[in-house]
C-alpha cells in the first residue's frame, strides 16, 4: 500500500464517500485521485460562472460554496464539506454560478477521468506505480554500492593476479629479497668478512629453522615456537586494540576541541618522547603479574602513534568542509559524525599501520625484561645462552609477523575508506 501524506489520504477517503464513487474499485479510485486537483478560494471568489462550460466534478473539503441558478427565483443552494457540486452540469445543465462563501478548499476531478473510472476501466497503472518508492530501489542501491566497493578494493589491490604477474613489480620485490639475503650469505659465510664472521650464517639459520631436530631447541617443528608466537601475537593484539580504543577518541578530541587540546596536549607531548625501555621499571612496579606490564609497555607507543595521527587527521580537514556542512544545516554533533570522523579516517588508518608496527617494536623490548614467553624473550634468553641462530629465527619471525599484521590493518583500512582508494585509483594514469 503506497504511503500518502495525511491530507491526500483524507481526500481519498473523502472521494470514496462521495455518492456514486463509493462503489469504485480501489485502483479506479487511485486513478481518480491521480487526476484530481486541489485549490483554495477566498471569500466571494467565483469557482465557475453561469456561462462557463464546466468540465469537473467539485468536492468541498472545507468551507462553503453557494450555488445559484441565474435567472431563477429559487433559493441558492449551499454545499459544505464532503458534498459535491458541478455534477449536474456534467449532465448538460448550464446557467449555474458557484461562489465561495468564506475561504474554502476544493478538490476537482476532470470529467474524462471520472467517466473513465465510472466505466470501470483501470486508470493509468504505470503512472500510478511511478511515484511509489518501495523497498526495491533501496536494495538495488545497496547491492550496487557493495559491488562498487568491492571493485574499488580490487582496484586498490592492483587489479587481478595475472596483470600483477605481467608487471615488473613482483620480480623487483623478489630481487630485493634476493639481494638482501645474498649479501648476508656472502658477508657471513662465503667471504667471512671481519666482524660479520661472528654472526650466524643464513644457511645455518634456515637449517635450524626448518630442522625436525633443532640443535638449539627451536624450529617450526617444535611446539614451543608456536607458543612463543602465540603469546606475542596475543599481547600485540590486546595492546593494539586498547591503543586504538584509547588513541582514536583522544586524537579526535585533541583535533576537534580546543579546550580538550589545551588540557591534554602538553601532557601528551611531555610523555610521548619517553622511550619504552624507560617505562619498564614503573610498569613492573604498578602492574602485577607478568602479562599486564608487557601489554602496557606494548600499547604505549601504539597509543601515541594512533592518537597523534588521528589528531593530525582532524587538523588536516579543510575548514570549508565544516562550513559547508554547517551551511547545509548540520548540528555540531553531525559535523563531528559526518565531517570530522570520515575526513580524518585516512590519517587514522595510517596511524593504525604505524601503531601495529611500533607494537612489535615495543613488545620485543618489553618481553626482554619480563615474561616467560614471547619472541622478545626468545631473543634475549638465546643471547644469554649462546644460541645465536635462534636469535635470528626470533628476529625474522618478528619481522614476518609485523609485516603480515600491518598488511591486514592496511587491507581493512582500505575497505573502510573506499572513497580514498577510488580517488587514488583515478589519479593513477
Amino acid at each position, binding site marked *: 500500500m503506497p504511503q500518502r501524506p495525511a491530507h491526500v489520504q483524507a481526500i481519498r477517503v473523502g472521494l470514496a464517500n462521495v455518492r456514486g464513487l463509493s462503489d469504485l474499485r480501489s485502483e479506479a479510485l487511485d486513478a481518480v485521485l491521480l487526476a484530481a486537483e486541489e485549490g483554495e478560494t477566498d471569500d466571494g471568489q*467565483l*469557482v465557475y460562472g453561469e456561462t462557463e462550460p464546466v468540465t469537473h466534478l467539485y468536492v468541498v473539503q472545507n468551507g462553503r460554496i453557494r450555488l445559484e441558478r441565474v435567472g431563477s427565483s429559487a433559493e441558492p443552494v449551499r454545499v459544505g464539506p464532503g458534498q459535491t457540486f458541478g455534477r449536474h452540469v456534467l449532465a448538460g445543465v448550464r446557467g449555474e454560478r458557484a461562489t465561495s462563501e468564506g475561504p474554502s478548499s476544493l478538490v476537482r476531478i476532470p470529467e474524462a477521468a471520472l467517466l473513465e473510472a465510472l466505466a470501470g476501466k483501470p486508470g493509468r497503472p504505470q503512472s500510478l506505480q511511478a511515484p511509489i518508492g518501495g523497498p526495491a530501489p533501496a536494495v538495488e542501491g545497496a547491492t550496487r554500492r557493495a559491488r562498487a566497493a568491492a571493485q574499488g578494493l580490487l582496484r586498490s589491490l592492483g587489479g587481478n593476479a595475472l596483470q600483477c604477474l605481467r608487471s615488473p613489480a613482483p620480480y623487483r620485490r623478489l630481487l630485493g629479497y634476493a639481494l638482501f639475503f645474498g649479501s648476508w650469505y656472502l658477508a657471513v659465510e662465503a667471504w667471512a668478512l671481519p666482524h660479520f664472521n661472528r654472526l650466524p650464517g643464513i644457511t645455518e639459520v634456515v637449517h635450524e629453522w626448518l630442522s625436525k631436530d633443532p640443535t638449539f631447541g627451536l624450529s617450526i617443528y617444535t611446539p614451543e615456537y608456536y607458543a612463543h608466537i602465540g603469546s606475542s601475537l596475543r599481547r600485540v593484539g590486546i595492546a593494539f586494540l586498547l591503543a586504538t580504543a584509547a588513541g582514536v577518541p583522544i586524537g579526535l578530541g585533541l583535533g576537534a576541541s580546543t579546550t580538550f587540546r589545551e588540557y591534554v596536549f602538553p601532557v601528551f607531548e611531555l610523555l610521548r618522547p619517553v622511550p619504552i625501555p624507560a617505562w619498564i621499571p614503573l610498569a613492573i612496579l604498578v602492574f602485577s603479574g607478568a602479562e599486564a606490564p608487557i601489554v602496557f609497555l606494548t600499547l604505549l607507543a601504539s597509543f601515541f602513534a594512533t592518537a597523534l595521527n588521528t589528531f593530525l587527521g582532524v587538523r588536516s580537514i579543510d575548514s570549508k568542509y565544516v562550513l*559547508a556542512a*554547517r551551511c*547545509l544545516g548540520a548540528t555540531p554533533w*553531525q559535523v563531528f559524525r*559526518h565531517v570530522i570522523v*570520515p575526513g580524518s*579516517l585516512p590519517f587514522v588508518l595510517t596511524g593504525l599501520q604505524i601503531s601495529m608496527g611500533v607494537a612489535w617494536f615495543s613488545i620485543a623490548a618489553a618481553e626482554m625484561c619480563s615474561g616467560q614467553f614471547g619472541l622478545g624473550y626468545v631473543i634475549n634468553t638465546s643471547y644469554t645462552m649462546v644460541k645465536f641462530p635462534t636469535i635470528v629465527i626470533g628476529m625474522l619471525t618478528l619481522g614476518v609477523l609485523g609485516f603480515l599484521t600491518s598488511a591486514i590493518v592496511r587491507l581493512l583500512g582500505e575497505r573502510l575508506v573506499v572513497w*580514498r582508494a577510488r580517488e587514488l585509483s583515478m589519479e593513477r594514469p
Partner: protein
Amino acid sequence: MTAGAIAWRSVGTPRAAAVVRPHAADPDAPLRRRGAIQIVDAVKYYGVGESRVLAVDHCSLDISAGEVFVVVGPSGCGKTTLLNALAGFHPLDAGSIHLDGELLCGPGREKAPIGSDRIVVFQNGALFPWKTVLENVAFGPAMRGAIPRDELLERARRRLAEAGLQGYEQSYPGETSSGVKRRVEIVRALMNDPAVLLLDEPFRALDALTKAMMHEALIASYLRNGSTVFFITHDIEEAVFLGSRVAIMTSRPCRPKTILSVDIRYPRSRETVTSKRFRELVAEATTAVHEEALNAYALGEKEG
C-alpha cells in the same frame, strides 16, 4: 467578488508561496517572497592596531528577492568579505545585514547564524570526498531529518537527473571531473531550497568550454528554483551573462562603484553573448572595472 482564477494544482503538491512582485531589474525573474538582502553601511577591517587595513568601507547594497546579483571587482577588494558576512562565517566591524527585513548581523548580533537559508558554493568546491554524489546531494535535508530517507534519496536522484547528472549517483566526487563536481555542488545547495545562494567564484578553475556549460546549467537551475543568487566573479562576460544586476566594486576599500542593470531576458543562451546589447554592457562594465584595476595597481605600488 474577488477577481482571478483559482490556482488549481495536482492533489498532494505543496501550495505555492504567495505571489510577489518581481524585482525591477528583471521582470522575468521567478516570483519569490524570500531572499531580499539589504547590506547597510558594512565596514570591515583586517588586522589589528596601526597596521589594520580597511577592506570594506560603508558598503551598502539592496538586493531584491529572486535576483541574480553579481559582484565584480579587482582581486582582494573585499568581495569575499561581504559573502562571508552574509553566510555568517565572519562578523562585520560595523553596519548591518538584513534578510527579508530580519536582522542577520549588526548592532546586537555580531555574526549572522550559519544556516541552510543561505548556502555557499565554495571557490574550490566543498563536496565531501568521503560521501558519494547522491549522499552529498541528500546531505542537507538528511541532516535536518526533514524527509524520510527513501523519499529523500528519490528526490536527490531526480534532482541529479534534472541537472543531467544521472549515472554519477554512486561515484565519489574524486572520481568525477571538476565540471561535474561544480554542478553537483549547486544541486546539493538547491536541494535545500535556500533563500539565498552564495557563490564565490565557483567557476574560476574551469576551462572555457566547461564554464560556458556551467553558465547555462546555472541559469536553468536558477530559473527553476528562483533563489536569490549572490555571485562573485572576476570574469566580466560571466557577470553580464548571469546577472540581473552587476555591481562593480571599487578596489580596497570595497564599495559599489557602479551597478549595471542587465536588461536582457532570461533564459539567456549562447546567442545572448553575440547580441549587441550584451556587448555594450560588457564594454561598459569593462571600462569601470579597468579604472578600478588601475587604482588597485597604483595602490599596490604605493604600498610596495
